[in-house]
């Protein structure tokens, strides 16, 4: 059973937050949603979580009992202790015999000794791990995570990823908005958003392979508008170049090239249609 979104569109006033987004979400896989600020990642995830934002399109999703969601804003009740947060989720989802699973989830992210701790007083990473544990407690078929690892220390990130991959290996479909592209590379599929439009979607290696033109590595870029830093050197995109295998292209390179190509296309459109 897979979940689908077809021709999903959504406007906030005059702004197109999402335009004709299509997505297929399959159990047992992690699907990454990436894009810059304001790309529409959080909006898409809210729709997937079941919020009614007056969207249009066809959406085929599980019922609320089968969805776990960690919003970008936190996802925990700061005045409650770790244990009370888990208990609230258990009661809201009408779970029985939930304590062993709660204990296991908290142990996997090193929060098992935090039972009485007020969650609002914990560090950012600890709060995100708790939010992740809360989302996974009801064993949802669809797990939706909005930048769950953003701003989290490397150890906590690793623990969170352990939770996420375990949920996927147990059969859950995971959709996660991400800011770290090294994390996105581990996903089964990627959806790259730009101003609410889908720039690319598919397997990470397919997105990288589909890049038009070539990317060359230089000490000093010859065209700064098409160049970006990579370590001590520069990567520069040549839209008319012939792809070669000498430069290793990462997902980050591919995402940057796709955004540059989109910006160039928008500029050409504006030049062709002066206001």
């Amino acid at each position, binding site marked *: 059973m897979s979940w689908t979104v077809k021709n999903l569109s959504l406007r906030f006033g005059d702004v197109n937050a999402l335009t004709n987004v299509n997505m297929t979400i399959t159990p047992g896989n992690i699907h990454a949603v990436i894009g810059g600020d304001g790309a529409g990642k959080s909006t898409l995830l809210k729709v997937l979580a079941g919020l009614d934002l007056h969207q249009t399109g066809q959406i085929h999703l599980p019922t609320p009992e089968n969805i776990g969601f960690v919003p970008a804003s936190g996802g925990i009740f700061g005045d409650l202790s770790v244990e009370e947060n888990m208990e609230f989720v258990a009661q*809201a989802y009408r779970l029985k015999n939930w304590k062993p699973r709660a204990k296991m989830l908290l142990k996997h992210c090193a929060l098992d000794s935090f039972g009485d701790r007020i969650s609002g007083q914990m560090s950012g990473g600890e709060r995100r791990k708790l939010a992740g544990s809360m989302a996974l407690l009801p064993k949802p078929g669809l797990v939706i995570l909005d930048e769950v690892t953003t701003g989290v220390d490397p150890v906590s990130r690793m623990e969170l990823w352990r939770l996420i991959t375990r949920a996927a290996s147990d059969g859950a479909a995971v959709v996660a908005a991400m800011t770290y592209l090294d994390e996105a590379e581990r996903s089964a599929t990627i959806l790259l958003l730009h101003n609410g439009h889908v720039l690319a979607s598919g397997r990470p290696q397919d997105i990288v392979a589909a890049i038009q033109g070539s990317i060359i590595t230089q000490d000093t870029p010859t065209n700064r508008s098409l160049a970006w830093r990579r370590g001590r050197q520069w990567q520069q995109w040549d839209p008319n170049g012939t792809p070669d295998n000498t430069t290793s292209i990462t997902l980050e390179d591919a995402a940057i090239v796709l955004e540059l190509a989109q910006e160039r296309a928008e500029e050409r459109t504006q030049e062709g249609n002066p206001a």
Partner: protein
Amino acid sequence: MQAMIVKEFRQMRRDRRTVALMAGLPLLLLIVFGYAARFDVTEIDTALLGPGAVEMATTLDPVFNVVTVNELAGADVGQDLLRNSEAGVVFVHTDSGQSMLIDGTELFMAQSALRRVPPGFQPNLLFNPNLDTAKVMVPALIGLVLLFIGTVITSLGVVREREQGTLEQLAVMPLRAVDVIVGKIAPYFVVALLDITIVTLAGLWLFDVPFKGSFPMFALFSLTFIFVVLGLGVAISTVSKSQSEAIQLAIMLLLPQIMLSGMIFPLESMSAEVRWIGYFLPLTWFVIGARGILLKGTDPATLLFPLGILVLMAIVVFGIAVFRFHRDIAPKRSSNPTSPVSAAAVES
């Protein structure tokens, strides 16, 4: 320093509610309270009873506004008129003597009447013979405490949830909208019930406030008033984006209730330009009911009107608050996530 001042002015300019508070509110308060804050009562509803009643009407000080004249009635009827707030002062003129009955629960009115006792009349203060301020204030303070709990604490509780973004979390959980709304408000209802019990018992015990009237009627007044104030709290939370905004709004709602409800200044002494505001404030009607029940043992039938007004306010305020909460605050879940959503709109 210049940079700081410019930054501060820019921030202030964009915070329209604060600008309104700083510029408009002082002027409004000055005008409203200037008209309201009067200690001398210049018009006292008066009843004249007994065979000499008509004759007496021509000899009284103009401050006594005669509303009832009954030549057949005696002192017993006079007490009932005061108990049911149908008059503030009753003159009884019978063959056996003359007496002046004054409602002691209306402090400023009673003091004004005492300064104008006609010759030959012996003043008799009823319900509060020593004109004890505490006894008059405690019933009103019960209402004020409830008002504070209901508006400030409830609105902060809801706005905090909104600020933390956890309302979205609640919306995607398998909870019904009614679960979220009732679950959010019910604890404050219980706290308000506890508060009213504690404050009333403390008032009776510490200040020797009597409880002369009907307990069921007092319970009805309290429950209805709690619904009104909880509704105000939720309504504030629906228009406040932050806790500081909620506090600002709550203060703007609390101040007029303290000044214009008759809790401190008698409604009768306020000029007509602001007195009408008092009749739109829930505390006004709670104070009438609580003072009547506790201090005077007012007939429950007489209190049906103020209770009815409070019930009407509760229905309107609570209804609007829940509607706005449902519409503006509680994020909505797609009605049926497994079915097409407005597919036609896309196709068009």
